């Protein structure tokens, strides 16, 4: 074919490369028209096609005896027994949330909810992993306020409890915050709904809210770097309507109880385009749609605009023909739009009409299977030295503890989670603020344990170790409440993949995650990739956020981190070497971000966690906290603050005190127990290292021969930072 210079220029404006445009032309046998080009551009955007990440994502383990459906559908599905399934996924809404924090975050929640209820699940919990820039950055306060209000505004209204998550601050996120939202739903395992179209002649139904001009090209925006003019991108951010979403949940679940739906897909990124192409592509069929039948809320919308709109709260369904009237009645009851907009065909082509005019006619198969796939060049990150603990300055431990529990990273996030309704539905057994939230399954004794985790500074220092640690910490957090970790969803947030060092971070994080998932029997069942998290060429810390889901057979047996009773023995599970490289002690107390992160011994993780979980379920442990950011003393302080009970401990000889108290060695937990002899004996038999540190009781935290601080003072420091920061103008 002859070069089409005008077409190429338009394609490049759409974010397609010259090579991609050539490929689109060869698929079409001609130059695609404006609407078709729009469809190519969104389907082949990084956001929709995973073109840079797919070759690496394939390396992750995605199967297991609990896995009903792995990555590739709207969300992952795992078996939780009793004929029930947990359906979950985490997804980013980073770029929109930076441009317009309230709506960006709100629609992030809406989108992930739809991914989950599309598959037949009632959403029972939301979580969110948030990362903001430095507290000193002029935009940070405004972004925190808007994002938190947006998440609350949406989640609270739809009536799904927001039970957990994480929030941290680092200058690398100054121009690129991360808003990763996770939803967990519950379905009958014999009633999971998938998206593959079937049955030529079946009606294609549009339900939900009307289509407007909002969010056009959102997926393309999310696939490019930011620059100084990002404020002008505000019209690409969608506007959320949680009330309509609530109605949509109820209407869809009501219809799903009937035998009516052949396939269903939410309209998320790239709206009607990706939903129709994916449904047709997965079914190996075609669709013929009359876009003039699409309910719209603005006048004179073109085919291009209708196909690329990212208006929220919309779904596409394929119904059994005889069930059309039943479905219509249900949606009318819930006062939602319901429109037959086309039919399934056996042509394998996506044909879009406006009345009688054909606006687009393109083959579905090649659009999906011939999407570009890149094996981008990558370089490994430089290896950082292992710092020797004895070479690192030791400061007064009580002063260091005060600095740490009052620093933005570790300060209480109560200001955030009290703005989220974390109790609605009446099944929240372990509330936000602990290692993992525990949400009971309605009508059962069992419960799901849920957490999100990542330590980006470890990932930056050593991507492989960081990827491994993120998975291990997730596994440990679920174990710490007594749950058996079952599977994860991953939200891979990275910079520009066209830079080899960024691609190297991605590749090595995946490698570390893969090893951890295999060693811990903890497969990946869903996920999302967010690349190009850069502003003016400066990338974020690599952040593979892990959302973990675990199961505990009896919710009453779960434990929290709160020290509630005096006279119990405080015991450390796992070995302590005193690793201070990349620790919060090093960063927050000494102002250094240096060295290699702590090694991850997956065999020890497994052994220690399996042992501890057994002890928790047997009722031998009354409080438990995993050791992570800040190390042992911070964990003990958090346990004391949570329960309002102090503790007195002794630092053992033979290890530098600061390494012992603040080292971030992995595979460790701090517990309180009533019968330490029995527990230590069992640990010894299992080959698990334990160390008795002291006793709970009193109203202070006391370290023998070192110092003490009252629990009240700890709480004051820990609770003050975030509300004070947010109140500053």
């Amino acid at each position, binding site marked *: 074919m002859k070069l089409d210079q005008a077409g190429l220029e338009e394609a490049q404006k759409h974010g397609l490369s010259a090579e991609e445009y050539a490929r689109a032309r060869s698929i079409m046998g001609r130059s695609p028209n404006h609407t078709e080009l729009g469809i190519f551009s969104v389907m082949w955007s990084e956001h929709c096609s995973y073109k840079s990440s797919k070759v690496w994502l394939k390396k992750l383990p995605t199967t297991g005896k609990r896995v009903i459906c792995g990555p590739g559908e709207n969300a992952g599905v795992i078996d939780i027994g009793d004929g029930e399934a947990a359906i979950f996924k985490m997804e980013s809404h980073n770029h929109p949330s930076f441009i317009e924090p309230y709506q960006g975050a709100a629609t992030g929640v809406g989108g992930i909810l739809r991914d989950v209820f599309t598959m037949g699940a009632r959403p029972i919990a939301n979580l969110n992993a948030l990362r903001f820039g430095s507290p000193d950055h002029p935009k940070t306060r405004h972004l925190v306020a808007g994002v938190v209000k947006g998440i609350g505004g949406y989640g609270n*209204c*739809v*009536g799904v409890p927001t039970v957990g998550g994480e929030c941290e601050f680092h200058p690398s996120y100054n121009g690129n915050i991360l808003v990763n939202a996770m939803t967990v739903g519950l379905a009958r395992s014999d009633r999971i709904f998938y998206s593959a179209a079937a049955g030529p002649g079946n009606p294609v139904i549009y339900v939900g809210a009307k289509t407007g001009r909002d969010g056009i090209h959102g997926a393309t925006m999310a696939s490019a770097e930011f620059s100084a003019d990002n404020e002008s991108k505000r019209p690409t951010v969608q506007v959320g309507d949680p*009330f*309509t979403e*609530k109605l949509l949940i109820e209407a869809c679940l009501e219809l799903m109880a009937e035998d009516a739906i052949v396939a269903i897909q939410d309209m998320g990124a790239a709206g009607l385009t990706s939903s129709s192409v994916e449904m047709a592509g997965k079914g190996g069929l075609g669709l013929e749609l009359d876009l003039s039948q699409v309910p719209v809320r603005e006048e004179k919308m073109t085919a291009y605009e209708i196909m690329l709109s990212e208006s929220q709260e919309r779904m596409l369904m394929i119904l059994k023909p005889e069930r059309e009237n039943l479905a219509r009645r249900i949606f009318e009851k819930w006062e939602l739009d319901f429109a037959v907009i086309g039919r399934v065909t056996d042509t394998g082509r996506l044909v879009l009409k406006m009345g009688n005019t054909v606006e687009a006619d393109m083959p579905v198969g090649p659009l999906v299977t011939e999407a570009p796939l890149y094996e981008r060049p990558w370089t490994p990150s430089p290896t950082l030295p292992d710092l020797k603990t004895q070479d690192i300055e030791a400061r007064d431990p009580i002063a260091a503890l005060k600095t740490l529990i009052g620093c933005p990273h570790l300060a209480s996030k109560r200001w955030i989670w*009290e703005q989220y309704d974390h109790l609605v539905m*009446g*099944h929240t057994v372990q509330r936000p603020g602990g290692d993992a939230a525990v949400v009971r399954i309605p009508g059962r004794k069992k419960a799901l344990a849920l957490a999100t985790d990542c330590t980006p500074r470890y990932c930056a220092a050593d991507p492989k170790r960081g990827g491994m640690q993120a998975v291990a910490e997730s596994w440990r957090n679920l174990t710490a409440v007594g749950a058996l970790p079952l599977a994860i969803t991953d939200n891979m947030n990275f910079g520009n993949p066209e830079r080899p060092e960024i691609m190297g971070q991605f590749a090595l994080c995946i490698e570390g995650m893969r090893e951890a998932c295999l060693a811990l029997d903890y497969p990946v069942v869903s996920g999302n990739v967010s690349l190009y998290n850069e502003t003016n060429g400066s990338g974020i810390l690599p952040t593979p956020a892990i959302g973990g889901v675990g199961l505990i057979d009896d*919710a009453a047996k779960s434990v929290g981190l709160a020290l509630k009773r005096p006279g119990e023995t405080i015991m450390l599970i796992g070995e302590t070497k005193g690793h201070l490289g990349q620790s919060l002690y090093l960063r927050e107390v000494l102002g250094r971000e240096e060295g290699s992160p702590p090694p991850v011994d997956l065999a020890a993780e497994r052994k220690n966690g399996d042992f501890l979980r057994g002890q928790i379920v047997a009722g031998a442990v009354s409080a438990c906290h995993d050791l992570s950011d800040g190390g042992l003393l911070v964990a003990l302080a958090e346990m004391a603050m949570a329960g309002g009970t102090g503790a007195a401990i002794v630092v053992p000889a033979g290890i530098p005190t600061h390494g012992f108290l603040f080292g971030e060695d992995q595979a460790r937990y701090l517990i309180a127990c009533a019968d330490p002899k029995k527990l230590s004996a069992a640990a010894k038999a299992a080959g698990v290292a334990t160390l008795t540190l002291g006793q709970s009781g009193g109203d202070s935290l006391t370290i023998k021969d070192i110092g003490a601080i009252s629990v009240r003072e700890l709480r004051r420091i820990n609770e003050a930072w975030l509300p004070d920061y947010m109140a500053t103008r």
Partner: protein
Amino acid sequence: MQAAIIVFPGSNREQDVFDALHRATGKKPLKAWHRDSDFPKSDLIVIPGGFSYGDYLRCGAMAAHSPIMRAVKERAAKGVPVLGICNGFQIITEAGLLPGALLTNQTLKFHCKDVHLKVETSQSIFTRGYNAGQVIRVPVAHHDGNYFADAATLDRLEGEGRVAFRYCSEAGELDTASNSNGSVRNIAGVLNETKTVLGLMPHPEDATDPLLGSTDGQGFFAGLVEALA
């Protein structure tokens, strides 16, 4: 005791109160959809929490004018007890079943947390399960729970023993720190003249299960069952 729960589009705590009533009565409450104005007779009508019709207008304002609320008002006038929790309190206040209004929290933020409440009177079907002066711990979850009425109205409510609950500290002090939504005179719940209609912002229904942190709401439902069985 047979309870009926009114469900509006956007209600979202109907299942929580359903479960609490079910646990307390052993009987499943009815659910009445907002269009169902001639819903079956019941011993108690409950208007649950949520965001009726999205609450994009003033909270509860749309629901207060729905046809089913006309039926609720008629039945309330005949003495059928009505309980409005959270959004339900906002709705029955907007509907004129109770005096006053619920303004936006003084912090301008949504609050979800446990609070302590002082039971001000045990002389009602809703509070007879408690002793006057008793302090209970139950959750709140709202953005617009800042109760307001003029001084004359408040004096009358207090004089007639119609303040049911006030926000207080764990020790029972009526301090400002415990009154984070800014309610006038720390008021968390009020009764109508006949004490057959109660509106309250906190959620006793979410404090009826030992696994969920507090069972202090059990007295609320036990008292209702005793009175209406």
